[in-house]
């Protein structure tokens, strides 16, 4: 094998190794980003429609939040959200599931503003599409997270104003 071939193989092996390592042991920043994406997937998850499966799905979403949390979302044209109680959150998720119109939520372009071993602040763009409606609701959101029992949980969600 030529010398440069050996170097190339070594470089590729190093890159693949780094990627595998990154996938197996993700950084806290990556964990937080994955958590937000996973939460959006769980919000959008379609259940079989039964009360119990809806309740289980709503509880799964509520599990992303810590024991003390607050959600304050105030996007133009969208209903204002002000929730700080788990049962209130579950109730809201259940009523959203019950409504006939499907809502698709996405959390896009997460940007880590600050992160330490136990706290993180991430800004992302929240997008909600209601089927049958022309407008999509877009709002920039700031997520404050805390690590509880080695797991990241959401402590606060608030709106960031794109326009002043």
């Amino acid at each position, binding site marked *: 094998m030529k010398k440069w071939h050996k170097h190339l193989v070594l470089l590729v092996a190093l890159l693949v190794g780094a990627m595998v390592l990154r996938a197996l042991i993700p950084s806290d920043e990556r964990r937080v980003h994955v958590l937000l994406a996973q939460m959006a997937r769980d919000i959008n998850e379609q259940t079989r429609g039964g009360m119990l499966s809806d309740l289980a799905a709503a509880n799964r979403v509520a599990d992303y939040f810590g024991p003390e949390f607050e959600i304050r979302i105030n996007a133009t044209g969208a209903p204002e959200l002000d929730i700080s109680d788990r049962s209130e959150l579950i109730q809201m998720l259940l009523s959203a599931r019950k409504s006939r119109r499907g809502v698709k939520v996405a959390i*896009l*372009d997460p940007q880590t503003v600050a992160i330490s071993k136990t706290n993180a602040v991430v800004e992302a*763009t929240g*997008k909600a599409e209601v089927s049958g409606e*022309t*407008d999509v609701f*877009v709002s*920039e959101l700031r997520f404050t997270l805390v690590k509880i029992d080695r797991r990241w949980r959401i402590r606060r969600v608030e709106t960031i104003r794109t*326009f*002043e």
Partner: protein
Amino acid sequence: MSALESDQTDMAPLWRRILIGRNPRITLLRAALIGLICWTTFRHVLLPVRISGISMEPTLRNGSVNLINWLPYWWREPRRGEIVAIRTTGTSVMYLKRIIALPNETVEIRAGRVFINGEPLAESYVKNPDPWEMPPRRLGPDEYLVFGDNRSMPMELHVAGVVKRDRIVGKAIWHGKPTP
């Protein structure tokens, strides 16, 4: 390439020559180059976007497609009347708005009419505006006032306002049909 190899490639069936050319290596290289050019162009120079919403109607229709040119604002500042893309935390979702007022200008809205430094602004692209009111406001050195062309709704329901320069990422290529 030897004469023998050259003869062999020339003897390749017609369908193969049409599909992958005389020399597959060169074809592959060309395809990779075209792919790279397309990726660079449509990712970093001309970003394709689909318009969702009615805030830029009648100039830009809901569901239509546009291209955002990222280059102009690398060497010049945005100008009044241009339709610009405003980023959020990234560029997956952007707002398309028209620039109404520039940095350091004083802007005011009276009965739906925009005044820049006390002078009325001619806006042929706005049809049936709602009587918006906004007290005089002087913009900062890196602030722009942007609005959608559709101002038929109350001001509180219109997603627009003052943005910082660093949020303006590019200019829309198509500005719709010129208004009579």
